[in-house]
């Protein structure tokens, strides 16, 4: 299903935001234990490694800008939360040297990716964690469209990147003997900047979200079995890989969509991952909004409404995000909400309200949970929004029971959190489904290590 939320970004680039402070957040990377390589006051360039994966120290994470390390933010138990880098006004790049990819060996390509911090762009399935350079994947999947609510349009954001995308594909080619699969949207595949790539296999997908989720696509093309490893790369990251080899620099700049009804100007901006939300404050609509007699603040989400992170007004854009969603907080009390015959301001997939009468309407959605948490009751709903050959409820139960064998048998290797995000949206018992999947994946990693 497509959640009919209002607030799409207009296809115009309003400005380039030169970052003031950049945050690098180890928490953007699933299951990562970071090891810091810099200290406060150090000077860094774009492409300098700031921290590495403690378990696999060859995987580095690089600063997207040049500047000085201003602060190292730690949380409970000294957990590393963020490294704040004060950005120079002119970016200085580390020169990795332009490469002729055709002549490059796998080892050289691997080394360049690891040193430049772009290895983090390569995600492995199962589990959705950063790939292991030692593995040889069965195939590499790239979803060429994003079907998430209010998602940026790659046909717009990547339209000038075809050459870089092609180079990216050629780099990935070195790592697998299998296919590099690009999935495009049935309705407009011909206009996609990924349509004319060489050396890839195309599939087209049709239908509402989660058709654009790479996990759903893999499940429909060639499901992951136990022992299989495939990699996935997001097209924005693919373009960055291309830029690295074409231009010899780590250029993480990207077009970021500013979406949601609490943004007064919905548009695209060119900027870097890790920018501060304060710098996009000018796009937020600070006018006071009152929902059901209660004043409503703005929620700043790095990403989309299903899988994004609530970073707050003081927060920073995530490493993989190319979307910021600004929506209203729903901390109000609606009188007799569940008992009203119709709630014209709210949307429901269920026909127990009347939003099915207005299929074209877009809603100004907020973050209210719309009910209390309950035991699981209504069946058959999750299956409707998980277009995979998987029984979602039984997989979730296996995870709750911490039954490793059952989780394996029911397909834990084939899913990550985002594939179940819609279950969470539709659930009348308000169960935190993504969190359960996340726990299941953590458990698998721990048990299989």
């Amino acid at each position: 299903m497509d959640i009919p939320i209002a607030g799409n970004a207009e296809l115009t680039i309003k400005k380039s935001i030169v970052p003031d402070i950049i945050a690098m957040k180890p928490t953007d990377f699933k299951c990562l234990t970071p090891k810091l390589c810099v200290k406060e006051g150090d000077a860094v360039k774009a492409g300098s490694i700031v921290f590495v994966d403690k378990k696999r120290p060859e995987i580095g994470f690089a600063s997207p800008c040049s500047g000085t390390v201003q602060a190292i933010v730690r949380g409970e138990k000294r957990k590393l939360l963020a490294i704040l880098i004060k950005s120079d006004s002119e970016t200085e790049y580390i020169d990795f040297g332009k490469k002729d990819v055709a002549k490059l060996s796998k080892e050289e390509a691997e080394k360049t990716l690891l040193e430049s911090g772009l290895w983090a762009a390569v995600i492995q399935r199962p589990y959705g964690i950063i790939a292991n350079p030692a593995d040889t994947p069965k195939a590499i999947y790239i979803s060429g469209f994003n079907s998430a609510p209010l998602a940026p349009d790659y046909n717009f954001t990547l339209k000038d990147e075809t050459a870089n995308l092609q180079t990216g594909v050629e780099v990935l080619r070195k790592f697998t003997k299998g296919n590099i699969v690009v999935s495009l949207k049935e309705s407009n595949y011909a206009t996609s900047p990924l349509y004319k790539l060489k050396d890839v296999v195309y599939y087209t997908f049709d239908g509402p979200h989660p058709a654009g989720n790479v996990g759903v696509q893999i499940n429909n093309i060639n499901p992951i079995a136990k022992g299989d490893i495939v990699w996935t790369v997001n097209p924005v990251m693919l373009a960055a890989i291309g830029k690295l080899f074409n231009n010899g620099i780590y250029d993480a700049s990207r077009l970021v969509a500013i979406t949601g009804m609490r943004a007064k100007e919905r548009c695209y901006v060119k900027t870097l991952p890790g920018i501060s939300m304060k710098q996009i404050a000018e796009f937020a609509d600070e006018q006071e909004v009152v929902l059901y007699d209660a004043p409503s603040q703005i929620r700043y989400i790095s990403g989309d409404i299903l899988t994004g992170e609530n970073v707050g007004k003081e927060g920073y854009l995530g490493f993989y995000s190319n979307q910021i969603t600004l929506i209203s907080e729903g901390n109000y009390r609606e009188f007799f909400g569940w008992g009203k015959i119709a709630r014209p301001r709210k949307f429901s997939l269920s026909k127990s309200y009347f939003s099915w009468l207005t299929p074209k309407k877009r809603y100004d959605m907020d973050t209210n949970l719309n009910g209390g948490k309950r035991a699981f009751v209504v069946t058959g709903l999750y299956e409707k929004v998980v277009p995979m050959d998987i029984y979602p409820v039984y997989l979730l139960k296996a995870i709750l029971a911490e039954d490793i064998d059952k989780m394996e048998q029911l397909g834990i290797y084939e899913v990550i959190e985002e594939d179940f995000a819609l279950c969470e949206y539709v659930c009348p018992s308000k169960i935190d489904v993504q969190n359960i999947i996340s726990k299941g994946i953590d458990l698998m990693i721990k048990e299989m290590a």
Partner: protein
Amino acid sequence: MKGLLNIVNKLKPTFSKGGKFGWLHSTFDAFETFLFVPSTVTTKGAHVRDCVDLKRVMSVVVLALMPALAFGIWNVGEQHSIAFGLDMTFWQKVWFGFLKVLPLIIVSYVVGLGIEFASAQIRGHEVNEGFLVSGMIIPLIMPVDVPLWILALAVAFAVIIGKEIFGGTGMNIWNPALLARAFVFFAYPSKISGDTIWIEGLSAANQSQLADGFSGATPLAQLANGAQELVTTTGDHLSFMQMFIGNIPGAIGETSTIAILIGAVILIWTGVASWKIMISCVAGAVAVGLLINGIAAPGTYADYPVWQHLVMGGFAFGAVFMATDPVTSAQTERGKWIYGFLIGAMTIVIRVFNPGYPEGMMLAILLMNTFAPLIDYFVINSNIKKRAKRIAA
């Protein structure tokens, strides 16, 4: 609304942990969330959520029960007036029925919700909405003459043994409403079987008060007793149409197939109950019924046309409102087809081959409730095998 919200907010500290009535936290919470949707916002995962919640889902089911309830109320008056030869207007019948049915509903809700609140309190949970539906279904599947204390006992049994000991709504194995009926059936059989209990006042009346030639036997009971032709309570021919409309003796809400079908449309349209279970339930009954019709000797119960079974007794009510209970039915989509089919099939088998108990629906559903997890197990296993094959390949 604002004034009310202020009162609620003012009272809240008293009922929160540490407050004077802190131990009544769950109860307060139930009333509070009844009036106002909680202000909870999403913390993990998806930032926006569908506006449907369990309260809404349950209220849709209660709404779907209303046609059957309304018809049942009228029918109580109607049957009474026929039995005693009284000349009552439409509204007199409705009022008469209302006065008889209302106490049953009140007792059911008061006892059931009382236990629900108490157990939520003990567990420190929020009160679950499940009983809003069970509490309405239970009176509808009882004979109107059932003594209130028996009803209260049955409800208590259903809620405590049927639900709470398993962990509350969502965890139970058997449909609580059916357990209530089964409890009455096995503990007080004279109150739920026989020819006199289905019509208000009949069991206490003496023959002279009744209309001439009157018999309160339900169509199912007549068949079980070997009747060749079904008759109305006054001895006339009983048509399919009359059973379809439902002005016949029976449990309060189960007689009118047409009122139940209106409920079914609501449930299917809103997606609250599974149409697969309803359809396959009818299919199961028809399939087995035709088979039995085919091999039956003429004139026996088994020869009785199967399509008549669909409008008799509790078949329609059970198929629409009780077999479809999402908690106790099969949970996989393929499992639902099998589950429903077997309920329909079992109902006819029990009705035809077990003359001691004319109503097969209750036992068929309870039996399949028991087997639903097994059905799901096989469905899930086929998925597991498919996955295992992929590894082998």
